[in-house]
């Protein structure tokens, strides 16, 4: 007898439907799984065998063939266990399945005692179920809340094989509602998560973050704080350069406290990614805060951008989607890893191609980098001399390639704080005040961005900029002057306009004025001065304070 059920698996961050066919026939007892199973799927045989026996059923001593269709894609993970077990019970005549089971997706891993364990990627599978016209989805009880975020899909939580088998038996699915489904209906689960159920794109997905760090903790650094505010409001990429101990890392960490709240749709995207990575908070709640990822500089290329041979996994750039990717000591990162950031910075996603096919991961993040100006860290410091040999200084920041720097909207030099700055916290801007301004600016820009179809000012293309930024003749004049003086690239010019647009949003101004452009130009520090990026190597041209204290080796 052949039984056909539906399950689901994840490729990239998208779910797809897998048909699970079980055939029990006579012959030498044997249980084999075909359809390109990976080891975890092949081992399902042993888990299912024990789970069936320990749930009060017999594992049939017959020739059992399980086919996972489509047979030409590699199946991985343990989510097929439940469908295989139910299929074997039905194929061996121990369970008469309800007709409507074919309209449900079965998902779950089995433990040896028959309990249904949580699996990764339930949310994308639930999305796939709805898109393919399924009526409902059977998921492990621990994943029920996650599956409930998909509207119009009935969620049946499963705790153990015996229980769910009785539920799927003839007549069990109709009266299922009467039994009550904990955290199953979309409404109830949304309430359980304390979230806004009306899914308007402008609504917030959760309360604003409450972080212990506050911008007021950082002494001085008014310019850097202003740059952070602009970065948060427009989603602009930011590079901070300064000596050690100036507060670059402190400042960057405080960025997450001033990021605007996620919209419902953004939160759903992020939750989907974290669902695939198995990184959702316990209980499978929604991700309500913008991600802030700060990988260490020893990170590998594949861990940063995503990778893996047969089944590519999302990397840090994808985990930072709709949030911030912070690279501390950016110059210490591997060159190939940094250069791989170019595509996601431009396009908001990354395409990973393997022999098994290509997957597309979303990677729309705000890049924040912090770096020292030279190996010793004091190049350009007004007091403390730099001790690096001159060649090292120029080669140091050059590790950040031109094309990469070109993609950074805001360059800020963070100076060592003066004693007076350390003394009083009074007057320093607080995170809550900045967050209020940032949220207001996003709100101000919302309609315009929605019309353009981009998530933030930073993501605008040239055509978007042309439509969003209308320049007065005086602004044109100013820009023409700046363009020639700084010998800007076309990309840098676009970035100035985008940053100016955000600054105008912070001012609640529909027009981009001269003062907005003037401020935006200030953040092109590395375009403006040849120091410290392109330091001339000959000694004579360097000011005395920057003389190397050590004798040169070469």
């Amino acid at each position: 007898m052949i039984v056909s059920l539906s399950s689901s698996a994840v490729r990239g961050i998208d779910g797809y439907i897998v048909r699970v066919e079980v055939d029990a026939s006579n012959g030498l007892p044997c249980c084999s799984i075909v359809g390109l199973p990976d080891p975890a799927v092949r081992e399902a045989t042993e888990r299912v065998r024990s789970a069936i026996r320990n749930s009060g059923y017999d594992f049939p001593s017959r020739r059992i063939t399980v086919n996972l269709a489509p047979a030409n894609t590699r199946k991985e993970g343990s989510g097929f266990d439940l469908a295989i077990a139910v299929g074997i019970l039905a194929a061996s005549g121990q369970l008469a399945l309800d007709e409507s089971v074919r309209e449900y997706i079965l998902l779950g891993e089995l433990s040896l005692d028959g309990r249904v364990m949580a699996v990764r990627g339930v949310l994308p599978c639930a999305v796939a179920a709805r898109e393919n016209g399924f009526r409902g989805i059977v998921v492990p009880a621990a994943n029920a809340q996650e599956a409930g975020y998909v509207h119009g899909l009935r969620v049946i939580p499963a705790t153990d094989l015996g229980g769910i088998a009785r539920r799927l038996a003839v007549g069990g699915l109709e009266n299922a509602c009467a039994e009550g489904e904990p955290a199953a209906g979309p409404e109830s689960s949304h309430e359980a998560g304390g979230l806004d159920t009306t899914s308007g794109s402008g609504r917030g997905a959760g309360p604003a973050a409450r972080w212990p760090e506050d911008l007021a903790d950082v002494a001085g650094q008014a310019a850097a704080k202003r740059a952070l505010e602009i970065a948060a409001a427009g989603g602009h990429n930011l590079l901070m350069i300064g000596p050690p101990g100036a507060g670059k890392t402190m400042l960057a960490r405080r960025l997450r406290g001033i990021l605007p709240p996620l919209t419902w749709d953004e939160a759903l995207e992020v939750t989907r990614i974290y669902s695939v990575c198995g990184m959702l908070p316990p209980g499978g709640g929604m991700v309500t805060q913008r991600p802030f990822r700060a990988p260490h500089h020893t990170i590998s290329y594949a861990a940063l951008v995503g990778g893996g041979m047969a089944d590519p996994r999302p990397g840090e750039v994808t985990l930072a989607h709709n949030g911030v990717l912070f690279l501390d000591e950016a110059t210490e990162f591997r060159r190939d890893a940094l250069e791989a950031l170019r595509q996601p910075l431009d396009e908001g996603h990354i395409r990973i191609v393997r022999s098994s096919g290509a997957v597309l991961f979303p990677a729309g993040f705000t890049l924040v980098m912090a770096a020292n100006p030279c190996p010793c860290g004091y190049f350009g410091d007004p007091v403390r001399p730099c001790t690096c040999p001159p060649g090292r200084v120029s080669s140091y920041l050059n590790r950040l390639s031109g094309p990469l720097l070109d993609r950074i909207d805001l360059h800020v030099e963070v100076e060592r704080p003066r004693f007076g700055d350390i003394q009083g916290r009074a007057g320093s801007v607080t995170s809550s005040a900045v967050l209020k301004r940032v949220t207001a600016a996003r709100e101000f820009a919302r309609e315009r961005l929605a019309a353009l179809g981009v998530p933030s000012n930073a993501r605008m293309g040239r055509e978007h900029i042309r439509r969003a930024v209308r320049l007065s003749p005086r602004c044109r004049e100013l820009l023409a002057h700046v363009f020639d003086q700084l010998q800007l690239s076309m990309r840098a010019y676009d970035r100035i306009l985008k940053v100016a647009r955000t600054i105008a949003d912070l001012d609640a101004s529909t027009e981009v004025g001269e003062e907005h452009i003037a401020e935006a130009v200030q953040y092109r520090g590395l375009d403006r001065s040849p120091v410290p990026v392109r330091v001339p190597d000959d000694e004579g041209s360097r000011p005395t304070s920057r003389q190397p204290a050590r004798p040169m080796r070469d």
Partner: protein
Amino acid sequence: MLAKNRRGVSGPAVRRPAADRAVGRAGEDAAAEELTRRGYVILERNWRCRFGEIDMVAEHRGTLVFVEVKSRGSVRFGSGAEAVDARKQRRLVRLARAYLCGRGRAGLDTPCRFDVVAVDMSRPGRPGIDVIEDAFAVS
């Protein structure tokens, strides 16, 4: 591939001491008695072919059962059931296939099962008999 397993190809290659063989023989008799009591119809005993020997072939509730009997005079080295390891399982599967082939097409479509009977004769008196139904499957 068959040549790898000397015992599988040529039958019991190791000449066991007479005492062990006596234990084995007595164990099989005790096992046959127990299985018959449980409703098995013994079809063959010590069915031999060029791959080796099946201790018993029986029919039980419409299923063809291949029985491996392991007798132990002492449980010091583990029970008889533990002695049916992966290699012995593969050998039994091969023998079962050979047996089914001998029965023609009908043989391949018969529900089948592998049982292991562990006979413990370490204590005087009636041997302890443990029948493990559906002990393993073709892997």
